[in-house]
């Protein structure tokens, strides 16, 4: 008996996951959605593997709040661990049920039968029947029991192969996104955003707006929420821009540049929590160092978009948000409809890397659709709206404290963290959708909340080092009163926590004149962590690392994501003059059983590139009008000419369960760059992004 997984306990019926369809395909349901990470291809592989189907016999149905399983949000790299494990068990169980039924039909013993491409073979020869000929006799409304054991790794033919992404051909030829969807009689919509939750609209000159739009735009107003709707997208966009310029607000949010800094965050009143081992009683020789990072934007390449239709009392919403079941609940609650009257369907959008404007745009579209029934509403955010109103990733400060033994090795560790929450997805911890604040009765205030450590942690994610140190703890100062909305961005708190932990470790190695890799290995017993560390060092030819201090450097970073998911070790080579240039990155990952190795490499490469961008370039700024970085000029990200050579290798770990990989390399990449820059300069830069000013300051110090 295989233990039922998390997702299966919530969705026990087999037919939520698997259905035989008339066109000789099998429909596999998942609550997880495609965000560009290739998850649907990997899940299709798992299903085809267990059912002995070809991959083209599987149809994925993802993010369907009515017929499919509910699996919360597609987040924190849980998809393969949760949905993959559930699909694997369900497929194995349905295969066993079908095989037993076929055996009866064929008057054969079950072990005389095998399955190939969905057809039953009796002693290796065609039997004339297949899954579809007996599907009607199977009761898939039954609940999963876990009675059938999935295949052992040695029997895999599809799992472990780099099956090409199912969605890429469409996307390379000009289709495939929610932005491209067209429904009959569809209207375009844009919004005027309420500048902060307490702002009240005093005046809106509709004449100016109509004139700028060229006329013919409908204005939908619900308290402090305003949308411009019409057949011509160009006109509707012009109306929204004009409205933003001419609207007069009371109590609009105003920010100061200082509020965007980690120092400001760290100076605010906090809700304090201790996680891990109790504080040390004896004072030891202690070393500490403080590291910071700014607010970051998700910076999706496409502004958020949603389509909604209210017809015959049912509100249907198409969205690229990360969870359709949560979205359905959040929209139903906000607009006051029963759950049965709302259906949410996932359609792919641009990469989001966490909680961006997607859910909020879905509510916006729903509000307009309710006001204008019977016509599909396609609502898209403007670029400045996405930058200005999506949740940010919180600025953070981290001080790491290490107590040392006589030999200079850590024997006690505290990671002290100042941060706003990284978990403010709608419906989680009392958070709501954006436009809910513009309604007559705004939602009640949230209480301090961040994702608990058992669920991977938010600000505290990866705050406990994986080294053998003795007592280890996190002191979290959760800042609640922050004037901007903060939530999950790929990696959450792990990016800075790993940057800080690994940075201090390099400094500690330096104090006793030891090589950073050797120093780590001396306090690292986890064999899987040792293996990726040694592998990355070998890939980078670490043993020939030079003395440093002359402008070029080599640095290393290591972490196991969430302390429970994939292991990643990264080595970065940098050259530093006026700016930091990353020339090479080597990365070794233990992802457990790799379902689709090339898909994994693709995600890790992307995570590395994004982390280089965070570490060297990105920074949200505030101004009197709120968030001030509203375009790609004020919020630059990495470009093609800044991309280093990146080599990623997976270590063979097929004996372990598959682990999520999409976020595992970010923290180690930031850490490797931080350590490489310290090696190159002979002095450390503790603050992200490592800009020209900070390089100069470090050199003067």
């Amino acid at each position, binding site marked *: 008996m295989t233990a039922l997984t998390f997702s299966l306990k919530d969705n026990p019926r087999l037919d939520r996951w698997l259905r035989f369809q008339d066109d000789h395909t099998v429909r596999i349901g998942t609550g997880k959605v495609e965000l560009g990470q290739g998850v649907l291809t990997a899940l299709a592989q798992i299903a085809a593997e267990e059912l002995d189907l070809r991959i083209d016999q599987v149809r994925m149905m993802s993010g369907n709040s009515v017929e499919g399983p509910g699996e919360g949000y597609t987040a924190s790299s849980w998809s393969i661990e949760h949905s993959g494990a559930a699909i694997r068990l369900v497929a194995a169980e349905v295969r066993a049920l079908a095989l037993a039924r076929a055996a009866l039909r064929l008057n054969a013993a079950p072990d005389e039968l095998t399955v190939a491409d969905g057809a039953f073979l009796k002693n290796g020869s065609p039997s004339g029947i297949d899954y579809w000929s007996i599907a009607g006799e199977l009761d898939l409304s039954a609940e999963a029991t876990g009675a059938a054991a999935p295949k052992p790794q040695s029997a895999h033919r599809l799992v472990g192969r780099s099956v090409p992404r199912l969605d890429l051909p469409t996307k390379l030829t000009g*289709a495939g996104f929610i932005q491209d969807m067209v429904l009959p009689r569809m209207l375009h919509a844009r919004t005027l955003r309420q500048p902060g939750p307490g702002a009240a609209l005093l005046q809106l000159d509709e004449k100016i707006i109509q004139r700028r739009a060229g006329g013919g735009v409908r204005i939908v107003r619900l308290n402090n929420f305003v949308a411009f709707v019409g057949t011509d997208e*160009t006109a509707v966009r012009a109306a929204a821009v004009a409205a933003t310029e001419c609207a007069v607000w009371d109590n609009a949010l105003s920010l100061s540049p200082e509020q965007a800094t980690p120092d400001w965050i760290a100076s605010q009143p906090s809700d304090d929590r201790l996680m891990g081992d109790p504080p040390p009683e004896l004072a030891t020789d202690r070393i500490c160092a403080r590291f910071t990072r700014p607010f970051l934007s998700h910076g999706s390449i496409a502004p958020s978009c949603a389509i909604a239709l209210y017809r015959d009392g049912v509100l249907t919403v198409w969205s690229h948000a990360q969870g359709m079941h949560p979205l359905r609940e959040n929209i139903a609650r906000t607009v006051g409809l029963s759950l049965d009257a709302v259906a949410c369907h996932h359609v792919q959008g641009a990469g989001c890397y966490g909680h961006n404007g997607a859910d909020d745009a879905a509510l916006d579209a729903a509000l307009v659709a309710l006001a204008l029934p019977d016509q599909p509403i396609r609502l898209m955010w403007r670029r400045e709206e996405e930058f200005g109103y999506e949740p940010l990733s919180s600025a953070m400060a981290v001080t790491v404290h290490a107590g040392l033994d006589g030999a200079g090795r850590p024997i006690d560790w505290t990671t002290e963290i100042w941060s706003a929450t990284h978990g403010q997805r709608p419906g989680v911890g009392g958070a709501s959708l954006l436009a809910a604040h513009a309604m007559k009765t705004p939602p009640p205030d949230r209480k301090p909340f961040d994702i608990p450590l058992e669920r991977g942690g938010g600000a505290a994610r990866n705050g406990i080092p994986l080294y053998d140190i003795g007592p280890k703890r996190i002191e979290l100062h959760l800042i609640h009163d922050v004037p901007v909305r903060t939530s999950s961005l790929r990696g959450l708190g792990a990016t800075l926590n790993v940057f800080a932990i690994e940075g201090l470790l390099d400094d500690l190695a330096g104090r006793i004149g030891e090589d950073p890799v050797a120093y780590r290995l001396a306090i690292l017993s986890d064999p899987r962590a040792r293996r990726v560390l040694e592998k990355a060092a070998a890939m980078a030819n670490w043993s020939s690392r030079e003395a440093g201090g002359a402008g070029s450097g080599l640095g290393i970073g290591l972490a196991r994501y969430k302390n429970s998911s994939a292991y990643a070790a990264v080595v970065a080579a940098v050259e530093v003059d006026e700016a930091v240039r990353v020339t090479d990155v080597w990365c070794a990952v233990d992802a457990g059983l790799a379902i689709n190795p090339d898909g994994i490499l693709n995600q890790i490469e992307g995570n590395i590139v994004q982390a280089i961008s965070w570490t060297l370039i990105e920074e949200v700024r505030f101004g009197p009008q709120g968030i001030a970085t509203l375009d790609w000029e004020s919020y630059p990200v990495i470009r093609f000419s800044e991309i280093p050579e990146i080599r990623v290798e997976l270590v063979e770990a097929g004996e372990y369960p598959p682990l999520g990989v999409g976020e595992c390399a970010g923290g180690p990449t930031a850490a490797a760059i931080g350590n490489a820059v310290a090696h190159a300069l002979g002095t450390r830069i503790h603050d992200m992004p490592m800009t020209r000013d900070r390089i100069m300051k470090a050199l003067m110090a």
Partner: protein
Amino acid sequence: MNECHTLTVNGHVHELDVPSTAPLLDVLRNHLGLKGSRYGCGLEQCGACMVLIDGVAAYSCSREIGTLSGRTITTVEGLRSAEALHPLQQAFLDEQAGQCGYCLSGILIVAKAFLDRNPDPTRAEIAAALDANLCRCGSHPRILRAVLKAAADMRGKMA
């Protein structure tokens, strides 16, 4: 005020009755149903909307249709032939170059114009040519490999 504009898009001549100030991108997407060119910023800062205008890669998000009468436009939909993908599209598939894929239309367009000028480029030359195109997923390493591969494939065909 609407006016009539004549435009050749992917080999077809269109007479369009739209305001002269309408951005080319909106005309392509909403009047001609060509959804491959994408809205990313509307500010000529990201490259998601790029098309070929008389063979030259250009932003379409702010380019007014009134300035384009008589010109020839190629969008990502026009890259392939009836029989086969363009070698660039094939190379992107071969290298699995893309994650979310939203940036790819603009990148394919710029790469096509670039390879037409420079059929045997280095990785650094390709990177420089694509520098105006943002990819937030970090698919850059694969995209660079794919363009190199397409260049080699196209040279192979010529030889």
